[in-house]
């Protein structure tokens, strides 16, 4: 049964389509509308907590082709506000599948809208930046009002919404990694667990509490929203630097740079895809990376305090850094993939190496330091 629906953006643009997944309350789902250009990996994207507060537009027109399965969840449930697609598969086909995407969306109360000219929407978002919007079966005027009322993700602490309530342990081994859950993806957890025992702690955990666990290293996870709103975490990180090796990914990377006095700013339309080229400055090697962020580190603001180790070749923004004088590094992109290429898995090995050796700056793997390539 076709449920005609519309998507209305804050600028008044209207897109006609049909409702998918769950029936939203009052016929309206709202959030910040973003896009993602991955060709596969929709289940991982939808369940990535970094999308809290957002409506995800998939640029690839066929979504749901291979269904969903138990192992591709990136968190305990989806935190996004909705999904926009051109075409949702009616019948999926893959030996790994246990259910359809439509069923999964309905199960978790996520609404979607299909039949949309997602290319038009993407072109619009590309030019204006992520924009609040609302979709559903409600009247166009109701959707318009909802879109106007939607605050977006600026200035909101979305981490509190997605972080774990209590600490828990994953894996086993001699080595202990304490992982901050700002919206931690399961793929990261799996990669960390390969290095040893991982104790996942809530975002609000203090440095003293973390150090009391006597970790070999601390991991700062990915997560949603504006890093400027997670001041408590920045505080905690300051207390950890120099005490223990630190590795951050995505939001963790932004928080690390704020902890050393850096600034973050919002990109015009963010990086959301699985095909961004990142150059590892030390080696000149290109990594094709999975990306999902709207905020970015201002390189001028960290000059002298950290070295830029990775650059995005599309827009030359900062993709990785290494803090001067202490064992701490981070990347803006997603080396854990899930979804995306495996080109940057070496970063986990680098973290292990950092945890294994003496804890001062000289212990950095040589290729993280790139004096001859300079800092952007």
């Amino acid at each position: 049964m076709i449920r005609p629906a519309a998507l209305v953006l804050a600028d008044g643009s209207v897109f006609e389509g049909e409702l998918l997944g769950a029936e939203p309350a009052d016929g309206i789902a709202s959030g910040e509308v973003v896009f993602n250009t991955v060709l596969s990996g929709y289940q991982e994207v939808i369940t990535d907590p970094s999308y809290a507060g957002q409506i995800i537009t998939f640029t690839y027109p066929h979504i749901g082709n291979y269904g969903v399965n138990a192992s591709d969840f990136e968190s305990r449930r989806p935190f996004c506000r909705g999904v926009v697609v051109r075409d949702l598969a009616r019948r999926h086909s893959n030996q790994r599948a246990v259910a359809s995407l439509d069923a999964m969306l309905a199960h978790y109360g996520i609404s979607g809208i299909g039949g949309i000219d997602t290319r038009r929407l993407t072109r619009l978002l590309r030019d204006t930046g992520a924009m609040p919007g609302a979709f559903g079966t409600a009247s166009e005027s109701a959707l318009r009002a909802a879109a106007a009322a939607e605050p977006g993700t600026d200035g909101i602490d979305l981490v509190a919404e997605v972080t774990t309530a209590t600490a828990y342990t994953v894996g086993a081994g001699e080595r202990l990694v304490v992982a901050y859950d700002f919206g931690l993806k399961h793929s990261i957890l799996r990669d960390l667990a390969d290095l040893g025992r991982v104790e996942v702690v809530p975002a609000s955990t203090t440095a003293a509490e973390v150090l009391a666990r006597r970790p070999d290293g601390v991991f700062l996870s990915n997560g949603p929203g504006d890093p400027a709103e997670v001041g408590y975490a920045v505080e905690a990180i300051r207390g950890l630097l120099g005490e223990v090796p630190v590795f951050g990914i995505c939001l963790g990377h932004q928080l690390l740079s704020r902890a050393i006095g850096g600034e973050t700013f919002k990109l015009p339309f963010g990086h959301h895809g699985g095909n961004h080229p990142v150059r590892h400055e030390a080696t000149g090697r290109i990594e094709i990376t999975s990306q999902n962020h709207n905020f970015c580190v201002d390189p001028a603001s960290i000059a002298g305090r950290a070295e830029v180790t990775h650059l995005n070749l599309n827009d030359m923004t900062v993709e990785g850094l290494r803090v001067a004088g202490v064992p701490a590094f981070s990347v803006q992109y997603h080396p854990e993939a899930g979804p995306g290429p495996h080109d940057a898995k070496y970063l986990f090995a680098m973290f292990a190496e950092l945890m294994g050796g003496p804890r001062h700056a000289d212990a950095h793997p040589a290729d993280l330091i790139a004096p001859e390539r300079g800092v952007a």
Partner: protein
Amino acid sequence: MPKRTDIHSILIIGSGPIVIGQACEFDYSGTQACRVLREEGYRVILVNSNPATIMTDPDFADATYVEPITWEVVARIIERERPDAVLPTMGGQTGLNTAMALFERGIIGVPGTPEMIGANAEAIATAEDREKFKQAMIEIGLAVPSSGTAHTMDEARAVVAQIGLPCIIRPAYILGGRGTGIASTLDEFEKVASNGLQASPISEILIEKSIAGWKEYELEVMRDRADNCVIICSIENVDPMGVHTGDSITVAPAQTLSDVEYQQMRDAAFACIRRVGVETGGSNVQFAVNPLTGEQVVIEMNPRVSRSSALASKATGFPIAKMAAKLAVGYTLDEIPNDITKMTPASFEPSIDYVVTKVPRWAFEKLPGTTGVLGTQMQSVGEVMAIGRTFPESLQKALRSLEQGRFGLGCDPAEQQLAAIDDDTLLATASVATPDRIQQVGELLRRGLGIDRVHDATRIDPWFLDQMSLIHEEREVLAATGPTAMDTRAWRRAKRLGFSDAQLAHLWQVDELTVRAAREAAGVIPTYKTVDTCAAEFDASTPYHYSTYEDEDEVRPSDRPRVIILGSGPNRIGQGIEFDYCCVHASFSLRDAGYETVMVNCNPETVSTDYDTSDRLYFEPLTREDVLNVIAAEQRASGGVAPKVIVSLGGQTPLKLAGLLPVDLIAGTSPASIDLAEDREKWNALCNELQIPQPPGGTATDLEQALQIVDRIGFPVLVRPSYVLGGRAMQIVHDRNHLARAMAELAGFGSLGREGGLSAERPVLIDRFLEDATEVDVDAIRDHTGDVLIGGVMEHVEEAGVHSGDSACAIPPQTLPSWVVEVIEAYVRSIAGALDVRGLINVQFAVSGTTVYVIEANPRASRTVPFVAKATGVPLAKVATRVMLGATLTELRAEGLLRTPSEHGHVAIKEAVLPFSRFPEVDTALGPEMRSTGEVMGIDSTFGKAFFKAELAAGTVLPSTGTVFLSLADGDKPAGIVVAKRLRQLGLGIAATQGTAAYLARFGQAVDLMVGKVSEGAELTAVDLIADGKVVFVINTPQGRGGRTDGEQIRKAANSHHVSSVTTVEAALAAVQGMAEQAGREIAVRSLQEYHAR
């Protein structure tokens, strides 16, 4: 790393003639490579024997050698040009094999010789030697199907005993899967394995456990010298393992792989290219996936650009060959800007926001005796690609792009053919892969047999089947709705599933234009989206468009005068690269003259569908609806100014559309003139008026009329349908029974059914067949002032009766008296004037005794235009295009575009290349139906030397030692005396059948060996001699009629044992002349630039 400065000149090896498995995709890649390397300042030396290619235009290389691509000839070129490097990865399997032969002889790739760039010998050997490849994959931990290699039948039997049946047999060092097959029984195994051993140039086969039915994928990988690797495109085959990927319907990107599986495959592809050692450039890695377990295995890897890489380039907008050429000279991916976005680097992986579907096109109807069953050996001759936002849309667009009378997936008159077949029979039929399977599957789904049953029978993934079902479900809704109740939403839903107006017209039994009008009244018109490599993430300026039905159109406005060039659609026998050459030249010359050029085509292999070729590219089917839509879009984008449309350069495809388009838009010769030449009655009247003799003849729509004509003109007659190209279904008919058979085949749903059958508008043409006449072809250009340029007069080697596309021809004419040539030229001027031609015209003549008969005239580009251009140095297609838009020949001479031909002092021969080695069941005797897939040119100082080169380039080695076998039809025997005498003088032995031997002996030419007839069970026959390798060359001419017993067996034996043969006495005479003139001499090589220097 910047580009290398230690090399200055680079030799590119082309792929030679168009053959099955190696088509114009290598012209596309080679042209890109030539352009890029010249732009980078390197001296480019090119060798390619194919004159129809764009790459062999003298403008694209510094030295262009249209010479045979054998290692000996290439070695001569290397000796002469002394290049610093050789790029072997642009010329398909031919390029690789030739490079390897040169390497093995120490001519390249070793210190002190030209370096191999792109892929070195070790890498090529690792990828191409199946056993080596398998070991390499096992070594890096990748799974491969269990297998073993064999060099003899005994070894083969031992392997199969170990791995079991069914198994697949793949010969080493072959292209397009030649000699490959699946065996399910031991009997089949014996046959397939021995075929495979024969097909492999090194007598090596890989015997592999069959994984038929698994899902099949391909990844296009690029690597630079800093070891950066990216995947450009993933491709999923709709047809599962068991059908050669070149014969499979394929889709990009992969549809049914989860990201975890895709990334695993991506990692494996990188590991593969690194292990094989392709240092820079593109490679294609094929995988199979077990649909039940997800198990992945590596099937094979091509360490070069390929058909798939051309498809991937067109599918993503990422020009793989161009990038591969840049990487080969040392750039890294991050140093090269993305061509399309300009702002971002090429070191990325394209993301696409549409679905691409490729469907192959076959030519089984031209090859009687073939089964039409698809397998592991490629048999298709061309392909189409279509872009849609969804799979159903792109599939339906692709199916109507094929030009085989289908309007989409069913919902057209041709679906009636399946109506009478019951469900079970149809299900059983569809379980065997054939060209018709996709429509059979569509019909089964429409009948409601269910996705699971159809999946069980075909192993096509349920996702694809479900998507196809959406089309049929919508069809039911549309039928119930009817044309008058359609609202905007309903129209949009139908069009988004790819329904053509023609399908809806059929469904509702109304006229197509009525559907169009109703749809447009509802405000539903196509929107054109852009192929931009990045799914709209970045702004892109490259205007590469496809139609779909969405909210937003992306064609940018401009106010320059614009010209739309309609391309030639999928390659097929009779219409191939020659027409793409003409379209591309049109685009180049109009761009130079300040026009905005717009290309419409659906063939992913071609240069015309390179987004660089024209100002705008529409990757669209060439149907009335789609072309009218493009015209409307262009008119909108230019503020209402109607564009001009060129219909006469792309062969029959655009010509057939001419009458369906607004007549005032057509550039050049008017559709009325085209019709005047095509309509037999009008044409006859014209020839009468001009007093130009024609063979007597008439037109018929049924047998009775046909009989009346032969009563008047007598047998033999030439019978052919109108409005076809390549002599489709053309026959020489000697008696009444044969005539009845021929008429039946042409009528209704006979073998020509899919092309339209017979009607008053499409009658059969019946002409007196002139025996022993010399055929002559002329290409000419006439401008609007009446000035005519004779581009080239070509004398055919084979007599009239062999299709001009299958016969060799020479420029200048070799035996015609000069007064005959002058008469011919006068006739051409007169006809061109009478037809008021504005642009190209091709006229065919038959010269019999002292009479010059005109056979037909076609006021359009012919197949020979590029050959004439290469032979004379005059860019005919460019000149003609300008003339079509109003320039005069005088103006073009003044401009410097039209130069005087340089046709003196050398002879150029065009020779046809036939696909028989792939079809051992087909008789190789030439006839009036064209069957060649491609052509080569031999150019040298004399006819004999040029003919020798042309034959060598076409794969026919004219021997200098050994025994030649002769078996001649009675009428050919006198010429046989001369042939035998020359062979004797050259020191060759002669074997012959009894009849031929006795005849020759009577005239003083005793033979060395006489054999009996195969049909009489003789102890020693020609077939035995051929099978035992006792003869090096076969001359066998068929009897005028029938005669398909012994002769056919002899020809088939020669074909399957790779013994070169000729099947006409004229070719035999030319061959002995070639042998005589080349005897004891080295082949001399010379570049086109030298031939045409002035």
